[in-house]
């Protein structure tokens, strides 16, 4: 790993300082890092004045970056280390650079590549999605296939699921996405700067603050803009409120999926109360329009503080009681325990992030490893339930809700006000690079920006935690009953649009 450059998150790096290695060295360095437990934060291709290049950001307890010229095709890293698998498929799809020997080489989002090279999946995009997608099939007399989606039976995003079953038992679940692809990265690197925050906030609507923060921090780092303490407090509270609201909603949904309706009804309503607190902060239930480069658009005055404080006082005991109702009912535990298990070993191999990773025994929390905003001064959450099953993923969420509440109380007691916001024009520096990381509610969100010699955005790369974690859901279903799919699915609750971009 000695040839990669150690960098900080949210730190402007001159592109000239990023080691530009021969491909073989680059490949070996990444694999070496992975062998030492390193995980992939970013690994993507970009077009630099007609030359296609690769760039990777790896994390251990530190961050490392390195790059190389992209060969037309290359020996897949996935064959040696699984954690690269999605990234290599994406590189193939976006730039036509083929990973040879990749054991699961399939399209990611179904769109033509932007380099004009021959399509690596042999697709002709005049044909509707999924083109010639090679679904994994299991053969045998009693084996049958269940296909679900893209349009699902509720108010849910589209995606296609294919189960290979023997009776009720699932041998394999294949998750084929791409329906939500709306060209987010392409937009981010081609539209005027004024549109950027709006697009960032809608990469995954339930992660508005997570993605919004990643973008704002990346741009602030590049342009050398400081954010005052008061704004940092509001940002941190907003991110924690987002976490609470989503976790609460999902705990309710878990309860519903085992036909225990009262907690689902209570948590459904309580989730709304937390969303309304985001509305108190910034005028929108999802935190739209709150985080902007340079700070936050709304300061938190005494009135908002009091509203937040009082509502938390009211809601926290209710949350504890309803959680108790769910997690201590034996009929619920009968369904949650040992269902949809992802072992620590597999979680580590595929690089699970967020609560799903923590429930499987990977302690990584970007708030601790790569703290932004106020996290450096805040206490960490501890997580002892790491069986990797539905119950673990549920319990982790409960603990995170309680922890997040505590963080908000601490921050509400801090008496620093943000300075009122004034919109500013930003000029990005030339030939620079930045990677931002935040622990959003689902896990590690990361944005990466590269600028060209004029300071315009050359490449904007987005990674939602779902990019790692969908594979976790597929693994969780192995050898499970198909009837437990909704439960397993909810315990991950991954983003389709965040994945599809």
């Amino acid at each position, binding site marked *: 790993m000695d040839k990669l450059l150690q960098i900080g998150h949210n730190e402007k790096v001159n592109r000239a300082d990023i080691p530009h290695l021969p491909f073989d060295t680059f490949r070996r360095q990444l694999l070496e890092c992975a062998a030492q437990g390193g995980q992939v934060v970013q690994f993507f291709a970009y077009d630099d004045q007609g030359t296609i290049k690769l760039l990777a950001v790896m994390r251990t307890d530190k961050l490392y970056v390195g790059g190389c010229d992209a060969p037309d095709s290359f020996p897949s890293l996935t064959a040696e280390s699984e954690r690269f698998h999605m990234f290599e498929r994406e590189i193939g799809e976006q730039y036509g650079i083929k990973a040879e020997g990749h054991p699961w080489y399939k399209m990611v989002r179904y769109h033509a590549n932007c380099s004009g090279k021959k399509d690596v999946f042999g697709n002709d995009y005049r044909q509707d999605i999924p083109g010639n997608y090679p679904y994994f099939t299991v053969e045998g007399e009693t084996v049958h296939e269940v296909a679900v989606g*893209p349009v699902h039976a509720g108010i849910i995003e589209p995606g296609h699921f294919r189960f290979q079953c023997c009776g009720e038992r699932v041998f394999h679940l294949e998750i084929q996405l791409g329906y*939500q692809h709306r060209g987010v990265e392409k937009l981010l690197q081609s*539209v005027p700067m004024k549109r950027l*925050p709006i697009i960032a906030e809608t990469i995954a609507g*339930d992660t508005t603050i997570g993605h919004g923060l990643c973008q704002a921090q990346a741009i602030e780092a590049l342009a050398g803009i400081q954010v005052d303490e008061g704004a940092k407090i509001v940002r941190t509270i907003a991110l924690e409120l987002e976490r609470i609201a989503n976790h609460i909603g999902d705990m309710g949904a878990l309860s519903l999926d085992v036909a225990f309706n009262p907690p689902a009804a209570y948590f459904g*309503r309580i989730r709304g109360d937390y969303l309304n607190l985001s509305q108190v902060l910034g005028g929108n239930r999802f935190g739209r329009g709150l985080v902007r480069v340079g700070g936050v658009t709304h300061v938190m005055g005494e009135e908002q503080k009091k509203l937040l404080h009082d509502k938390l006082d009211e809601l926290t005991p209710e949350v504890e009681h309803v959680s108790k109702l769910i997690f201590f009912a034996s009929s619920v535990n009968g369904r949650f325990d040992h269902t949809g298990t992802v072992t620590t070993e597999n979680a580590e191999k595929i690089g699970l992030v967020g609560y799903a990773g923590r429930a499987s025994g990977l302690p990584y929390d970007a708030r601790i490893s790569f703290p932004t905003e106020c996290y450096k001064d805040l206490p960490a959450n501890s997580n002892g339930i790491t069986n990797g099953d539905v119950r673990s993923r549920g319990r982790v969420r409960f603990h995170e809700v309680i922890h997040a509440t505590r963080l908000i109380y601490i921050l509400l007691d801090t008496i620093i006000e943000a300075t009122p916001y004034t919109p500013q024009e930003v000029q990005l520096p030339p030939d620079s690079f930045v990677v931002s990381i935040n622990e959003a509610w689902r896990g590690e969100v990361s944005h990466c920006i590269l600028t060209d010699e004029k300071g315009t955005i050359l490449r904007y790369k987005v990674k939602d935690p779902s990019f790692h974690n969908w594979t976790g859901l597929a693994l969780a279903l192995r050898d499970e009953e198909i009837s437990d799919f909704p439960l397993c699915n909810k315990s991950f609750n991954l983003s389709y649009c965040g994945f599809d971009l």
Partner: protein
Amino acid sequence: MLQVIKNRLEQGYRTSKYPKEPINLYKRFRGLPRVNTQCDAAVVKRCADACPQDCIDAKSRRIDLGRCVFCGLCETLSEGKFVTFTQNCEMGTASRDDLFSTGDLPALAEHSKKHFKKLFGRSLQLRQISAAGCNACEADTNVLNTPFWDLARFGILFVASPRHADGIHVTGPISKNMLAATITTYEAIPSPKVVIACGACAISGGPFYGSEDIVGDLNSIIPVDLYIPGCPPHPLAILHALINYFK
């Protein structure tokens, strides 16, 4: 069992009395904007130039509510002199043109197609199509099924199959990858059927306008009956539109 009863007592009865009693939203909430048409031209131009959605027409001083994402920038920039946001959620319209607005929208109830009221006034079953938005429109539609809103008390249900539905409720800018599925779902619904475009995405492409990977305007592929602007529309906005258009 004791726990269940205890929790039930703690939770009590939480369903709102809407529409008999109004629901008041916090003053920071950005609902229907009010435009000051007398505002200084320089201020208007500044807002129009800065608007991330390019949805302010400086000449007519109208905002395209079908594309606006209610980010609040125009209010901040003009210090409320050009645009102020009210907490009014009554924003549904029956015509796309009405959404080019200075803040006065026609009363939706009077513009509803009368046969829809007759057909679906007592029971409306909708099929949701989620087509490449950000899932926040979906989330705030789903919220209508929670006890506070209790959509079912109005006889409105989201159903699991187009075969059971009276119409579609579409969110998202319809990616190319969802085009076929959107049309197939629409076609699977027996006539007469209604089409609702919910959120800036389905009306105009929303934050993703101009992307080559989307259709961007539901009406260009299927005729839309009801438009609900917002990004996302507040649950109250969706509920108001559904009740007024169909009841």
